[in-house]
């Protein structure tokens, strides 16, 4: 179980999260929507303990472990993986090198290179991603959509238990969206992992079916609903949805 309790955090001396609470049970898929700049990406980075963000209060707990006391790599080793909104590129470091090193460090065992390469190639086929990327520098010379697929290649190898997808759908064309969603759904069915999806578009929700949709505003979740909430937001905007929920409370 993944749980965020009363999280309050600042960046650049500005309060971004204010008493934020969220619970994701094993295997559940949650969606967070909200205005630009409301703090969705910040939330993801705080979960991974990015030191640029200052946590004033609260806890992030995964399977009983308090993540905030751990360095980023330990959080990753607990099974949490973030696919960023804009994955960076790193010159001189190949995808294969990073993944091989990560596995070797984690397991303390030698990696069977043949099996490892075969697995990466199979994942590339599933994602319709050119296999050339395997031995290329991380995200160097890759388009926006290709970067997202490369990150999912990392996911397929590192096998996280909780996946944080920050605007995975941005930069993906319709076909790529379908291939990527199939890949994630298959992984979810196989591993029963939990997923947190950040998005602005209800389209991704047509492909990956969430259990809950939350609206983030003023530092915390102001509304939670099922998949229909995404359509309401699409039709009425965040303000409309919020007003409707306040009317509901009055009755």
């Amino acid at each position, binding site marked *: 179980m993944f749980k965020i309790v009363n999280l309050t955090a600042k960046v650049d001396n500005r309060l971004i999260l204010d008493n934020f609470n969220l619970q994701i049970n094993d295997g559940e898929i949650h969606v967070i929507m909200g205005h630009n700049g409301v703090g969705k990406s910040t939330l993801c980075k705080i979960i991974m303990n990015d030191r640029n963000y200052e946590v004033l209060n609260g806890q992030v707990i995964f399977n009983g472990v308090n993540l905030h006391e751990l360095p980023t*790599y330990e959080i990753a080793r607990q099974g949490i993986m973030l696919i960023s909104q804009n994955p960076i590129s790193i*010159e001189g470091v190949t995808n294969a090198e990073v993944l091989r090193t990560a596995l070797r460090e984690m397991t303390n065992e030698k990696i069977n290179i043949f099996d490892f390469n075969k697995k990466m190639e199979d994942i590339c086929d599933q994602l319709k991603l050119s296999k050339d990327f395997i031995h290329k520098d991380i995200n160097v010379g890759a388009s926006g959509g290709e970067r997202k697929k490369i990150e999912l290649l990392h996911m397929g190898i590192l096998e996280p238990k909780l996946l944080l997808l920050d605007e995975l759908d941005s930069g993906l064309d319709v076909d790529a969206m379908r291939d990527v969603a199939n890949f994630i759904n298959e992984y979810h069915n196989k591993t029963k992992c939990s997923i947190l999806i950040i998005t602005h578009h209800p389209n991704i929700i047509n492909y990956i079916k969430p259990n809950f949709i939350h609206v983030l505003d003023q530092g915390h979740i102001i509304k939670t609903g099922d998949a229909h909430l995404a359509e309401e937001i699409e039709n009425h905007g965040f303000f409309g949805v919020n007003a409707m929920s306040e009317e509901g409370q009055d009755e």
Partner: protein
Amino acid sequence: MNKIYTDKQVFNIIDDNKDLTLSLNDGQMVVINCFFYQIKDMNINIEQSNNSYLVINYAGYVHSDVNINMDVNVLGNGNKTVINVRTIDEKNHANFNVSVQANEHTINNEIVEDLKAINEDGTITFMPILKIDTNEVQAEHYATIGGLDEKELFYLESKMLSTKTAKEILKKSFIYNLFSDTFKSMLGEGKEEDE
């Protein structure tokens, strides 16, 4: 304009700090690749006459106090000089004097000095010196000293790499990026430890 140099010579130097003195022939291209697991004092003195092309790629790790002097003297016309330095100062002090001189009355020479360092726990001084006694020269020099990129470190750690390993990988790529695949393979790049 890419000239073809039929007279080309490559020096590959690994962990050997013997002084190096050379005079390039007219029209000759010389590439000097130097890599040091631990940088030691070294002097490199080179003369270029006419239409020659010199590339020095120098990289390595600093662990003790060292002085590196590179002195290139451009005597004639139409030469190209490129000096790239990539170092990581893990401790103590390193002093790099990189000097290129283009004499009076020479024309059509091109000089680039690109010196970069990552400073971990030491101090580095770059002295890029361009002694140019003529206007007929095209010269650029860069010297930057910084730390490892925080965003890159965060990215690698979020892919399960320990801080120590992530730093090692970034340092290695900083240094290796300078070299051709041929020279990298001499340094053990691409060697698969797994089976």
